[in-house]
């Protein structure tokens, strides 16, 4: 999936025109986990909707598996199957009487029926680890975590090649988040591209292969987690909680110790140890200062 120089504004041509994306480029390949991080209103959800051809680029290029997204392009429906999009709070889309019907909705829309449909549902259910005896239940009667899994399954059931998730961890408790991360890692190892839209920098740094940082609709940084951590140390992004490691490095820097966050943890620890006994730390008594 290739996105180049994408710009988009809402209500274009009216007094309430609002620029949502400006000159954003990113590419994602299968088997890769890319996180798009940004503050509220940074344009990350708008970007996610472009990946699914729900929004057509106003300028710039969106190309998925060789198909370019234009207003008249053929095969946009097929693209929506290829790129599964899990909206924020996806359980708000529920309408069916049973969890099974909910999960079967998407594959049935693409013409699956009978044996094939069963197979899609089974694949999705086992993929998200949903207890099969919950399938007959009313989706609204399930617990929050189970609802989220049904919602995920309802997208995974159409066997997408790319999975775009808009704030997938919102409203989940810690075990629920861990479970979700495990599921996404498993899907990635099966060859899916995972694109996670989030404002949780720490989780994005921990789990993704690459990150794209958006600020006010513009991409300000992109790259591997270590590079992004280093970038954040130099340029904190307004509206995002800085990860503890970055805060720690920033604190050390104020005291004259420079850490290179692109190096691995071992090297960083060694570097801190070399500074003992804290000769460089001003105004502190040496004996109270130990690492």
């Amino acid at each position, binding site marked *: 999936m290739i996105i180049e120089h994408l710009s988009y504004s809402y209500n274009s041509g009216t007094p309430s025109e609002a620029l949502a994306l400006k000159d954003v480029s990113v590419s994602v390949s299968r088997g890769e986990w890319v996180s798009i991080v940004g503050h509220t209103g940074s344009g990350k959800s708008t970007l996610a909707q472009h990946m699914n051809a729900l929004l057509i680029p106003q300028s710039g290029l969106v190309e998925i598996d060789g198909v370019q997204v234009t207003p008249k392009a053929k095969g946009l429906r097929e693209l929506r199957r290829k790129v599964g999009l899990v909206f924020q709070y996806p359980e708000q889309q529920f309408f069916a009487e049973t969890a099974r019907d909910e999960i079967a909705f998407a594959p049935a829309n693409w013409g699956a029926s009978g044996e094939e449909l069963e197979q899609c549902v089974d694949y999705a259910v086992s993929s998200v680890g949903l207890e099969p005896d919950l399938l007959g239940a009313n989706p609204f009667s399930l617990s929050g975590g189970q609802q989220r899994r049904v919602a995920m399954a309802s*997208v995974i059931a159409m066997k997408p090649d790319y999975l775009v998730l808009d704030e997938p961890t919102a409203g989940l408790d810690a075990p629920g988040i861990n479970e979700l991360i495990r599921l996404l890692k498993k899907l990635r190892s099966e060859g899916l591209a995972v694109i996670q839209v989030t404002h949780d920098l720490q989780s994005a740094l921990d789990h993704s292969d690459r990150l794209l940082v958006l600020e006010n609709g513009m991409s300000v940084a992109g790259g591997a987690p270590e590079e992004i951590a280093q970038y954040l140390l130099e340029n904190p992004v307004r509206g995002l909680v800085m990860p503890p490691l970055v805060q720690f490095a920033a604190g050390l820097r104020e005291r004259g110790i420079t850490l290179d966050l692109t190096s691995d943890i071992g090297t960083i620890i060694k570097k801190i140890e070399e500074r003992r006994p804290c000769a460089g730390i001003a105004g502190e008594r040496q004996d109270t200062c130990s690492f």
Partner: protein
Amino acid sequence: MQFLSGISLGQFIPGDSLLHRLDPRCKIISTFLLITGLFMASKIPDLVLWGIFLLALPALSGISLKTILKSARPILFLVAITALLNLFWTPGRAVFQAGFLKVTEEGLMTAFEMGMRLFFLVVFASMLMMTTNPMAFSDGLERLLSPLSKIGFPSSEMAVMMTIALRFIPTLFEETDRILKAQLSRGADFESGGLLKRARSFIPVLIPLFILVFQRAENLAIAMESRCYVPGMARTRLNPLVWSGKETAAILGLLAFITAVVLLDRSYFLGFVAI
């Protein structure tokens, strides 16, 4: 793809113009005066005067003429139908005839006048909504209707209901847009098939929407209760409405203009008959 966009009929456009600052009561009364005036006088010479009035609106409201004209777009269809009906069903001197369809001179005139009258009506009414924020509007309406509460009309409850309804219209559009998109990305197809199939395809949109609306209503009820809302209790206002000289002047000025238009209409009519 942006669904349900371009619904600008009466959407508030924030600003700081003369019209924005006028008391909402003054604007509501003015709109009624204008509509009354339109119904009393909508011959072609009068329409020119209404047109001049329309051209003055951008200066008074700080809203571009284009946006003002656009507000009539949703009812253009209605305008066209009204005009067409009048075009063919007005008896008089025929200028064109094809089978049972007969276009008369009078028909042409009435069609144009009716269409324009409807157009001005919508533009003036949406002018009110474009320059009045919904809260101020329902405040104004409540005050205007408050004399009726003496005969048991629940004017303040009405105002609260209206405020809530107006407040949630954009929210509901956003929610609908989101659910539409979500179902679309799960392969829902709203465009192909017969009427029945298409109607059925909206079930996955309507059910989640209803659920959301009920959830919102419940949350809102709890929020209102926790702030001690009691229906019918007298409440004070953070920003009380103020009727100053500017409002009186505006009403008087508008009355003078409308009287002039109506007088012109009558004299034109009388002159026409005399000839």
